């Protein structure tokens, strides 16, 4: 396995002793209050949350519900999220829909890395959150995609109903509205990993 596929956090981006500062807070406080910057930030966040293009990327059963969400009855396009892009370069949000296996994990990670910033990930379904029904005996199932990529929104269910996925998109929009549209901070990346590692060691 080449080193770039190593799934442990990169020491450069891993949290050091000091708490990482949110890039938006790193500005000069006076500058932060500047009307123009605030307005531009507002416009940026407004556009980001209203044009969340998902990646056309399905893994398993949940992908069918993802398709149902985009299709006739539920119509994700109402929220501006109906443009499913097949190329990760043009996608904003990766809906990890379906079981992530050990064979697939490097590819999921790679696809996530191919997306341009700011990027978001929605963990859709029990398998993606923590291995779901396969977490106990499913030797080939990754016990949570947050061991591989940082996740913004978790949607429980097996599979989650389309309403739940729509709710997740709304939650993501709310999250962008409240705390800005930037991707997850380094200290939030793979936060679940520590927990899992601790459990694994015990």
């Amino acid at each position, binding site marked *: *396995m080449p080193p770039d596929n190593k799934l442990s956090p990169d020491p450069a981006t891993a949290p050091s002793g000091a708490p990482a500062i949110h890039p938006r807070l790193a500005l000069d406080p006076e500058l932060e209050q500047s009307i123009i910057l605030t307005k531009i930030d507002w416009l940026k966040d407004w556009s980001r949350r209203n044009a969340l293009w998902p990646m056309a990327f399905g893994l398993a059963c949940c992908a069918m519900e993802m398709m149902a969400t985009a299709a006739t009855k539920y119509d994700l396009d109402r929220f501006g999220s109906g443009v499913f892009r097949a190329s990760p370069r043009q996608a904003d949000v990766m809906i990890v829909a379906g079981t992530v296996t*050990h064979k697939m994990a490097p590819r999921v990670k790679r696809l996530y890395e191919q997306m341009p910033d700011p990027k978001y990930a929605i963990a859709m379904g029990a398998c993606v959150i923590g291995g779901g029904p396969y977490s106990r005996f499913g030797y080939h199932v990754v016990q949570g995609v947050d061991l*591989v990529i940082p996740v913004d929104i978790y949607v429980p269910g097996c599979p989650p109903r389309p309403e739940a996925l729509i709710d997740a998109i709304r939650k993501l929009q709310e999250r962008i509205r409240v705390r800005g549209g930037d991707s997850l901070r380094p200290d939030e990346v793979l936060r679940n990993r520590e927990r899992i590692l601790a459990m694994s060691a015990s």
Partner: protein
Amino acid sequence: MSDAAATPPPATGAAPDAGPRDAVTAAAARLLAAKVPGAVVEAVETGRHPSLTIAADKLVAAARVLHDDPELAMDCCHLVSAVDWPAKTPADGPGAIEVVYHLVSYARKQGAAYRRSAVKNDGFLVLRVRVPRDKPEVPSVMGVWVGADWHEREMWDLMGVKFTGRASLRRILLPEDWPGHPLRKDWAYPVEYHGIPIIPPEGR
């Protein structure tokens, strides 16, 4: 084959209870006795689980005969499975792995008589090959039924049955560097795979 014969009989399929003879299995047994002597080690023609146990070294010849025979015309290998039978105690030897072939014929299936018999056994001819667990080598039937290719690769992948005499026997489902063959009864869950921790079943 002598090693396998020394292992205890499997828990399944061995007890022939009374009942009508399965026509397909009986015909296959007759055919093999005539064409490939010594191929059939054990023939169970009655009961719920009619099957033929074939000697591993005669498997390809037997498969070829079953496939080419105009009467039986077993043109499709429906499934290749393998069952792990580890020895109860070390004294019993290495244990056995049983490779099970379910054969079916589409060429022969026309006709009401077959349809009636099909209800009984679903029309399958079951072949078994028993090999010792520590040296599970079975000749490949890929040359006879091309569809066996992927099934054999899967059985190598999950059960560790080595199919000999075929082009490449690579893993098919699991990554190439996966530790061990998970469906073996004594397989242990890995702790991590390429940096991703795995919580063993006991931890969950």
